[in-house]
Protein backbone atom coordinates (compact mmCIF):
# COMPACT_ATOMS: atom_id res chain seq x y z
CA UNK A 1 0.00 0.00 0.00
CA UNK A 2 1.46 3.28 -1.08
CA UNK A 3 1.30 6.42 0.99
CA UNK A 4 1.39 9.98 -0.30
CA UNK A 5 2.48 12.85 1.94
CA UNK A 6 0.92 16.30 1.73
CA UNK A 7 2.47 19.14 3.70
CA UNK A 8 -0.04 21.87 4.49
CA UNK A 9 1.80 23.42 7.40
CA UNK A 10 1.13 27.15 7.41
CA UNK A 11 -1.79 26.88 4.98
CA UNK A 12 -5.35 27.76 5.79
CA UNK A 13 -8.78 26.46 4.94
CA UNK A 14 -9.77 25.52 2.24
CA UNK A 15 -6.28 24.67 0.94
CA UNK A 16 -5.66 21.57 3.14
CA UNK A 17 -8.86 19.82 2.02
CA UNK A 18 -8.30 20.90 -1.58
CA UNK A 19 -4.80 19.41 -1.52
CA UNK A 20 -6.08 16.29 0.22
CA UNK A 21 -8.75 15.88 -2.48
CA UNK A 22 -6.11 16.22 -5.17
CA UNK A 23 -3.80 13.72 -3.49
CA UNK A 24 -6.62 11.22 -2.98
CA UNK A 25 -7.48 11.46 -6.65
CA UNK A 26 -3.86 10.70 -7.56
CA UNK A 27 -3.44 7.57 -5.44
CA UNK A 28 -4.89 4.12 -6.02
CA UNK A 29 -7.81 2.53 -4.19
CA UNK A 30 -6.81 1.44 -0.71
CA UNK A 31 -3.73 3.66 -0.70
CA UNK A 32 -3.32 6.26 1.99
CA UNK A 33 -2.62 9.97 2.07
CA UNK A 34 -0.94 11.58 5.06
CA UNK A 35 -1.66 15.24 5.59
CA UNK A 36 0.34 17.51 7.85
CA UNK A 37 -1.55 20.65 8.77
CA UNK A 38 -1.63 23.26 11.50
CA UNK A 39 -4.86 25.10 10.77
CA UNK A 40 -6.96 24.13 13.83
CA UNK A 41 -10.01 23.87 11.55
CA UNK A 42 -8.75 20.56 10.17
CA UNK A 43 -9.64 18.82 13.41
CA UNK A 44 -13.31 19.16 12.50
CA UNK A 45 -12.92 19.43 8.73
CA UNK A 46 -11.25 16.13 7.93
CA UNK A 47 -13.74 13.87 9.77
CA UNK A 48 -16.53 15.70 7.94
CA UNK A 49 -14.71 15.62 4.62
CA UNK A 50 -14.31 11.85 5.01
CA UNK A 51 -17.93 11.38 6.05
CA UNK A 52 -19.17 13.07 2.88
CA UNK A 53 -16.61 11.72 0.41
CA UNK A 54 -16.61 8.18 1.83
CA UNK A 55 -12.85 7.93 2.30
CA UNK A 56 -11.68 6.40 5.54
CA UNK A 57 -10.16 8.54 8.26
CA UNK A 58 -7.50 6.15 9.52
CA UNK A 59 -6.04 8.38 12.17
CA UNK A 60 -5.66 11.94 13.33
CA UNK A 61 -2.85 12.69 15.73
CA UNK A 62 -1.73 15.92 17.34
CA UNK A 63 1.91 16.62 16.73
CA UNK A 64 4.24 19.42 17.79
CA UNK A 65 3.57 21.18 14.53
CA UNK A 66 -0.18 20.63 14.39
CA UNK A 67 -1.97 17.57 13.09
CA UNK A 68 -1.07 14.44 11.20
CA UNK A 69 -4.06 12.99 9.41
CA UNK A 70 -4.11 9.68 7.56
CA UNK A 71 -6.85 8.99 5.03
CA UNK A 72 -7.39 5.79 3.05
CA UNK A 73 -8.96 6.06 -0.39
CA UNK A 74 -12.21 4.17 -0.59
CA UNK A 75 -12.42 1.25 -2.93
CA UNK A 76 -15.07 2.56 -5.29
CA UNK A 77 -14.93 5.84 -7.23
CA UNK A 78 -13.77 8.84 -5.25
Amino acid sequence: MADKKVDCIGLYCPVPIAQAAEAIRAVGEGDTVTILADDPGVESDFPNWCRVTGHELVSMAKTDEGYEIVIRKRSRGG
Partner: protein
Amino acid sequence: MVNEKKRKMVLVLCAGELDRALACMNIAVGGASMGMDVTVFCTFFGLNAIRKDGVAPAPRPEEEPKRVGLFGARALRRAFARLNPGGGKYMNPSRFSFWGLGRRLMARLMRDSRMANLDELIKLGSSMGVKFIACTTSLEALGIPRDSLRPEVEKFAGVATFLAEAVESDVQLFI
Protein backbone atom coordinates in the same frame (compact mmCIF):
# COMPACT_ATOMS: atom_id res chain seq x y z
CA MET B 1 -24.07 8.71 4.29
CA VAL B 2 -22.05 8.10 1.17
CA ASN B 3 -24.27 8.67 -1.79
CA GLU B 4 -23.09 7.66 -5.22
CA LYS B 5 -25.10 10.45 -6.82
CA LYS B 6 -22.93 13.51 -7.29
CA ARG B 7 -24.00 16.35 -5.04
CA LYS B 8 -24.44 19.80 -6.48
CA MET B 9 -23.98 23.25 -5.04
CA VAL B 10 -24.79 26.61 -6.54
CA LEU B 11 -23.52 29.88 -5.13
CA VAL B 12 -24.72 33.35 -6.05
CA LEU B 13 -22.16 36.08 -5.50
CA CYS B 14 -24.10 39.32 -5.63
CA ALA B 15 -21.89 41.78 -3.76
CA GLY B 16 -18.54 43.34 -4.51
CA GLU B 17 -16.92 43.20 -1.10
CA LEU B 18 -13.67 41.29 -0.84
CA ASP B 19 -14.68 39.33 2.25
CA ARG B 20 -17.86 38.06 0.64
CA ALA B 21 -15.99 37.09 -2.50
CA LEU B 22 -13.35 35.26 -0.46
CA ALA B 23 -16.01 33.39 1.52
CA CYS B 24 -17.78 32.45 -1.71
CA MET B 25 -14.65 31.10 -3.39
CA ASN B 26 -13.59 29.34 -0.19
CA ILE B 27 -16.92 27.49 -0.08
CA ALA B 28 -16.67 26.74 -3.79
CA VAL B 29 -13.22 25.18 -3.40
CA GLY B 30 -14.42 23.29 -0.32
CA GLY B 31 -17.39 21.91 -2.26
CA ALA B 32 -15.19 20.82 -5.14
CA SER B 33 -12.84 19.17 -2.63
CA MET B 34 -15.79 17.19 -1.29
CA GLY B 35 -16.65 15.90 -4.72
CA MET B 36 -19.49 18.30 -5.46
CA ASP B 37 -20.40 19.87 -8.77
CA VAL B 38 -20.04 23.55 -7.97
CA THR B 39 -21.39 26.51 -9.92
CA VAL B 40 -20.68 30.12 -8.96
CA PHE B 41 -23.15 32.53 -10.49
CA CYS B 42 -21.86 36.11 -10.34
CA THR B 43 -24.21 39.02 -10.63
CA PHE B 44 -24.10 42.78 -10.05
CA PHE B 45 -20.98 43.81 -8.14
CA GLY B 46 -20.21 40.16 -7.53
CA LEU B 47 -18.97 40.25 -11.12
CA ASN B 48 -15.97 42.23 -9.92
CA ALA B 49 -14.62 39.04 -8.34
CA ILE B 50 -14.32 37.31 -11.71
CA ARG B 51 -12.92 40.30 -13.60
CA LYS B 52 -9.33 40.84 -14.57
CA ASP B 53 -7.66 43.40 -12.33
CA GLY B 54 -8.17 47.04 -13.21
CA VAL B 55 -10.47 49.36 -15.14
CA ALA B 56 -12.25 47.67 -18.04
CA PRO B 57 -11.24 48.93 -21.48
CA ALA B 58 -13.86 50.98 -23.33
CA PRO B 59 -16.38 48.70 -25.03
CA ARG B 60 -16.22 48.53 -28.81
CA PRO B 61 -19.10 50.32 -30.54
CA GLU B 62 -20.78 47.01 -31.41
CA GLU B 63 -20.71 46.06 -27.73
CA GLU B 64 -22.60 49.17 -26.65
CA PRO B 65 -26.25 48.62 -25.74
CA LYS B 66 -28.54 48.93 -28.74
CA ARG B 67 -30.92 51.38 -27.10
CA VAL B 68 -29.25 54.23 -25.32
CA GLY B 69 -32.08 56.38 -24.07
CA LEU B 70 -30.28 59.18 -22.39
CA PHE B 71 -28.08 61.74 -24.09
CA GLY B 72 -24.55 61.29 -22.80
CA ALA B 73 -25.26 57.76 -21.53
CA ARG B 74 -22.06 56.51 -23.14
CA ALA B 75 -19.93 59.00 -21.24
CA LEU B 76 -21.80 58.15 -18.07
CA ARG B 77 -21.07 54.46 -18.55
CA ARG B 78 -17.39 55.18 -19.10
CA ALA B 79 -17.25 57.29 -15.95
CA PHE B 80 -18.94 54.50 -14.04
CA ALA B 81 -16.53 51.91 -15.43
CA ARG B 82 -13.65 54.07 -14.24
CA LEU B 83 -15.11 54.24 -10.74
CA ASN B 84 -15.66 50.49 -10.65
CA PRO B 85 -12.40 48.66 -11.35
CA GLY B 86 -12.57 44.88 -11.12
CA GLY B 87 -10.50 42.04 -9.76
CA GLY B 88 -9.47 41.00 -6.26
CA LYS B 89 -6.73 43.63 -6.15
CA TYR B 90 -9.33 46.38 -6.31
CA MET B 91 -12.03 44.91 -4.09
CA ASN B 92 -12.49 46.52 -0.71
CA PRO B 93 -13.36 44.70 2.49
CA SER B 94 -16.84 45.40 3.88
CA ARG B 95 -15.28 47.07 6.93
CA PHE B 96 -12.16 49.17 7.36
CA SER B 97 -12.04 50.10 3.74
CA PHE B 98 -10.34 53.44 4.41
CA TRP B 99 -10.57 54.51 0.78
CA GLY B 100 -8.44 51.65 -0.45
CA LEU B 101 -5.93 51.44 2.37
CA GLY B 102 -7.92 48.68 4.05
CA ARG B 103 -7.68 46.32 1.12
CA ARG B 104 -3.93 46.77 0.93
CA LEU B 105 -3.61 46.08 4.63
CA MET B 106 -5.83 43.03 4.34
CA ALA B 107 -3.89 41.74 1.34
CA ARG B 108 -0.67 42.20 3.30
CA LEU B 109 -2.01 40.42 6.37
CA MET B 110 -3.31 37.53 4.31
CA ARG B 111 -0.11 37.18 2.33
CA ASP B 112 2.01 37.24 5.47
CA SER B 113 -0.04 34.43 7.01
CA ARG B 114 -0.02 32.48 3.72
CA MET B 115 -3.77 32.58 3.23
CA ALA B 116 -4.96 32.04 -0.32
CA ASN B 117 -6.03 35.26 -2.02
CA LEU B 118 -8.99 35.62 -4.36
CA ASP B 119 -6.94 35.03 -7.50
CA GLU B 120 -5.47 31.81 -6.09
CA LEU B 121 -8.85 30.53 -4.90
CA ILE B 122 -10.46 31.13 -8.29
CA LYS B 123 -7.59 29.38 -10.10
CA LEU B 124 -7.70 26.49 -7.63
CA GLY B 125 -11.49 26.20 -7.88
CA SER B 126 -11.39 26.28 -11.65
CA SER B 127 -8.73 23.56 -11.74
CA MET B 128 -11.04 21.44 -9.56
CA GLY B 129 -13.99 21.90 -11.88
CA VAL B 130 -15.84 24.87 -10.35
CA LYS B 131 -17.90 26.57 -13.06
CA PHE B 132 -18.13 30.35 -13.15
CA ILE B 133 -21.13 31.98 -14.79
CA ALA B 134 -21.49 35.72 -15.43
CA CYS B 135 -24.95 37.31 -15.43
CA THR B 136 -25.49 39.03 -18.77
CA THR B 137 -27.94 41.63 -17.47
CA SER B 138 -25.46 42.82 -14.86
CA LEU B 139 -22.65 42.95 -17.40
CA GLU B 140 -24.78 45.31 -19.47
CA ALA B 141 -25.97 47.32 -16.49
CA LEU B 142 -22.47 47.87 -15.17
CA GLY B 143 -20.89 48.33 -18.60
CA ILE B 144 -18.46 45.44 -18.16
CA PRO B 145 -17.19 44.05 -21.47
CA ARG B 146 -16.99 40.26 -21.66
CA ASP B 147 -13.32 40.24 -22.53
CA SER B 148 -12.48 41.96 -19.26
CA LEU B 149 -13.62 38.85 -17.39
CA ARG B 150 -11.18 36.20 -16.24
CA PRO B 151 -10.52 33.23 -18.51
CA GLU B 152 -12.09 30.91 -15.90
CA VAL B 153 -15.55 32.31 -16.71
CA GLU B 154 -17.06 29.73 -18.99
CA LYS B 155 -20.63 30.83 -19.48
CA PHE B 156 -22.83 33.90 -19.81
CA ALA B 157 -26.38 33.41 -18.70
CA GLY B 158 -29.49 34.68 -16.98
CA VAL B 159 -31.78 33.80 -14.13
CA ALA B 160 -33.26 30.69 -15.72
CA THR B 161 -29.82 29.11 -15.86
CA PHE B 162 -29.29 29.86 -12.21
CA LEU B 163 -32.72 28.50 -11.26
CA ALA B 164 -32.24 25.36 -13.34
CA GLU B 165 -29.01 24.74 -11.43
CA ALA B 166 -30.64 25.68 -8.13
CA VAL B 167 -33.56 23.24 -8.32
CA GLU B 168 -31.13 20.42 -9.01
CA SER B 169 -28.71 21.45 -6.28
CA ASP B 170 -28.38 20.13 -2.76
CA VAL B 171 -26.91 23.39 -1.51
CA GLN B 172 -27.87 26.88 -2.67
CA LEU B 173 -26.29 29.94 -1.14
CA PHE B 174 -26.78 33.62 -1.85
CA ILE B 175 -23.73 35.60 -0.85
